[in-house]
């Protein structure tokens, strides 16, 4: 299949790439840009491990073709603690033991970071709804919920 040139903007940097039109955004990030923090768990849009941001909104990288993303800005897990310092939510995940094997973690961070940057509530049922698009087989979710609550409380505390 012939490749087409695209310009992909990822984490604030522009990349000129040659990709097959059928190449998934998830594969392009991982293979062409070596951004392997975006994980692939199901390739049919259910598990949430490949969650990235497209123009600041969470999206499944396995349900997008790279060619669709020209003209949009992609943000991946690698941009969240770019200075080597964990974000408040990453820090809360660390403190609350919100991760075990870590494979689903980047997707969970991307989902929750986006939510926390809006106006987070501290309603547990809403937080559980938020997390329902990301599967985790290790933790039983309880400590992830605690981490989101902790980060949301801190964010509200700062805003107040």
């Amino acid at each position: 299949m012939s490749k087409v040139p695209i310009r992909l903007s990822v984490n604030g940097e522009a990349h000129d790439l040659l990709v097959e039109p059928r190449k998934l955004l998830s594969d392009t990030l991982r293979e062409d840009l070596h951004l392997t923090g975006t994980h692939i768990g199901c390739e049919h849009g259910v598990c949430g491990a490949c969650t990235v941001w497209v123009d600041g909104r969470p999206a499944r990288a396995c349900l997008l073709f790279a060619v669709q993303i020209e003209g949009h800005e992609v943000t991946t897990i690698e941009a969240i603690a770019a200075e080597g310092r964990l974000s408040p939510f990453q820090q809360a995940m660390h403190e609350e033991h919100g991760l075990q094997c870590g494979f689903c973690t980047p997707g969970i961070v991307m989902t929750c970071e986006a939510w926390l940057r809006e106006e987070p509530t501290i309603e547990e049922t809403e937080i559980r709804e938020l997390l329902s698009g990301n599967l985790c087989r290790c933790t039983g979710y309880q400590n992830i919920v605690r981490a989101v609550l902790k980060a949301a409380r801190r964010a509200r505390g700062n805003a107040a």
Partner: protein
Amino acid sequence: MNGEGPIGKRLLRKEDFRFLTGSGRYLDDIEAPRALHAAFVRSPYAHARLRHIDLTRARGAPGVVTVVGGAEVNQWTAPLRMAPPIEGLHPVEVATLPTDKVRFQGDPVVCVVATDRYLAEDAAELVDIEYEPLPAVASFDAALAPGAPLVDDALPSNLVSHQTFTAGDPARRFAQADRVIEAVFGQRRQTHLPIETRGALAIWDEGRQHLTYHNPNQVPHPLRSTLAARLRLSESQVTVIVPDIGGGFGQKIALYREELTVAALARHLKRPVRWREDRLENLLASSHAREDAARLRAAVTNTGTVLALDLALMEDFGAYCFYPANYLARVVAMILTGAYNIRDYSFDVQVALTNKCGNGPMRAPMAITSWIIEGTIDKIARELDLDPVEVRRRNMLRASDLPYVTATEQRLEDITPYETMERAIEEVDYAGFKRRQAAARQEGRHLGLGLCVVVESTTYGSAFYKAAGIPGSGHEAAWVKVEPSGAVNASVGLMASGQGYETAFAQVVAAGLGIDPAQVRLHIGNTDVAPYGMGSRGARGGTAGGSALHLAARDVADKVLKIAAQLLNLNTPDQLRLAGGAVERLVGGAWEPTELTFGAIARTAYLDPLRLPAGLEPGLEAHRAYDPPPMTFSNATHVCEVELAPATGVVHILRYVIAEDCGTVLNEMIVEGQQHGATALGIGGALYEALDYDADGQLRNGTLADYLVPTACEIPNFEIIAMHTPNRRNPTGSKGMAEGGVMGAIGAIGNAVNNALAAFGVEATQQPFSPEYLRTLLRGPLLSLSRI
């Protein structure tokens, strides 16, 4: 060893930074120049003769380097022979890829190797295979029906394993009994579902004749032994490197046929070959689990004393045996009597092959045992109109009964089932539940409460394997090396897939050396670095691996103190200890600092050996192995309260309490995380998860949209009560854990839902208790209610 410095502390995990920032390194993150990608062509039939395989079109496809089937791969590899000397177990042999027939939908037949994964999958579409479909058997009953087609043509029947056992005189006890109460239980087929699927990257060095094999596997050394043998290489020609593992749960133990094929192809092609299965393959063709059914007959008195038990257990094992077929069912039967004093016991365990994906151990492979015994106790209470807790009290072992040798000769000691039960029911106000239940009923709400007393078998020692006739061992090995700078490296034969070993084991080693855990770095997952150990499985990591590390650290500490005594001009190190990174001396009943630091002694040991005591070798390291007792037990009581919506069949968990005694814990936070995860996995199986095969052996729910696993909305918050008491048989006091949560959830949910269903006069006997299943049970009773 409670109170010894860092042991048990809630130390935050060393692993977290890399995982939280996307810089973990999983299999598919490893770059390999010139690597080729493999894709497998799988059988669409559950059972079919392979008539003809034509690879011509696929071989001509763009990017394709080679396309091979069993005709080629079986030349390069030895078959898997599974033939332990176990009475009633038929030996079986599995070729790397089938050449005569396929045995389940998803059976790999052909491997395509191309320059990228997309092209390999394109070419896989061009492989022409002519199948002659055969009748399939897709259930235990169908497999054992007269005239059933054979799954394995080399066996006399599909009954691949059958064992019976009797202790005491159950027949006499059944004759004496006031009542015989019978209960049945079933779990449907589940799968482990690690979020990272299987995969491998094989790199063959033609010059050195050496294979470097990257594979997310829980047991690196046993994997290397098998891989080398099946490739007909020496164990010194294979290095297994295990990167971070994205979840295992027992799925990543065996050497799978796809993974062996990839290794053989790398050697044949003299180029790196990699494979990562997709999720559909993982659901269809990796490894499945459970799908067992049981009937337990209990001989009881009118007051609820259990005189004897008689178990019939049946497991549908799927098409291939990557483990001895009796491996999982055996333990269910062995530990069935749980926390109870029941001497007269018999079992009959049958395992059948069917045309479905092969079974393997999934976190708590023995889990159904808890539901069987605890569900039967509840049923006894229902039938005799007794309180289920009273029936438990009447039969349960107390501290004064220990050590207790069970009917199957398991030695129970240092367990506290009675104490955890009493504490858990107090926590949930068990005494007030009937009132709450009645009050809710007035509002049209249907509550149920269930408890499950768990006795969890962990850390199987070499004596267990010997007695079971299974090749292998239960020991674990470790080394601890203090470098000249005082930095500490340590290793163990285990492999982590989320258990936080790098943190918890740093705590163990640091405790032994009197240093900060931050100074200890654990190196695992490389067979050239780690000592030969048996890997991570069966809740053995902390108990077996932690103990081996503890012993090695103690040896190193002994040497440090010997050196310190010499440097301080003392005759013996008896009055010295290591604490806070330095040597302390007992003077007049108080520990006082000396000028010697841990680092200074390390430097002396390596760089100034003439100052060492006579007879001590330069250097500072120790290597130890630890073989635990045949079986170690921890225990817990799970209590859960549910609300059942009769109109929809939906079960909502209102409250979930776990009182657990798993001995000395190495890191309390990590242990709680394991309790959460195990219990959540159990809830998945109890309420949602089932691989749905039709009668022809076609999987009908092979996507993540159809195979339902719990999300954050289905799992409750767990209230954990730590009641840990040390295990006197283990050097660290640990008892093993991380599977018992599954056992507890299956039993507690089973009992809670049946408690709620009792008002309708129906009983749920097969998990998952899906809304569809519960509605089927409730439809009749609800109709008759509406007619009243």
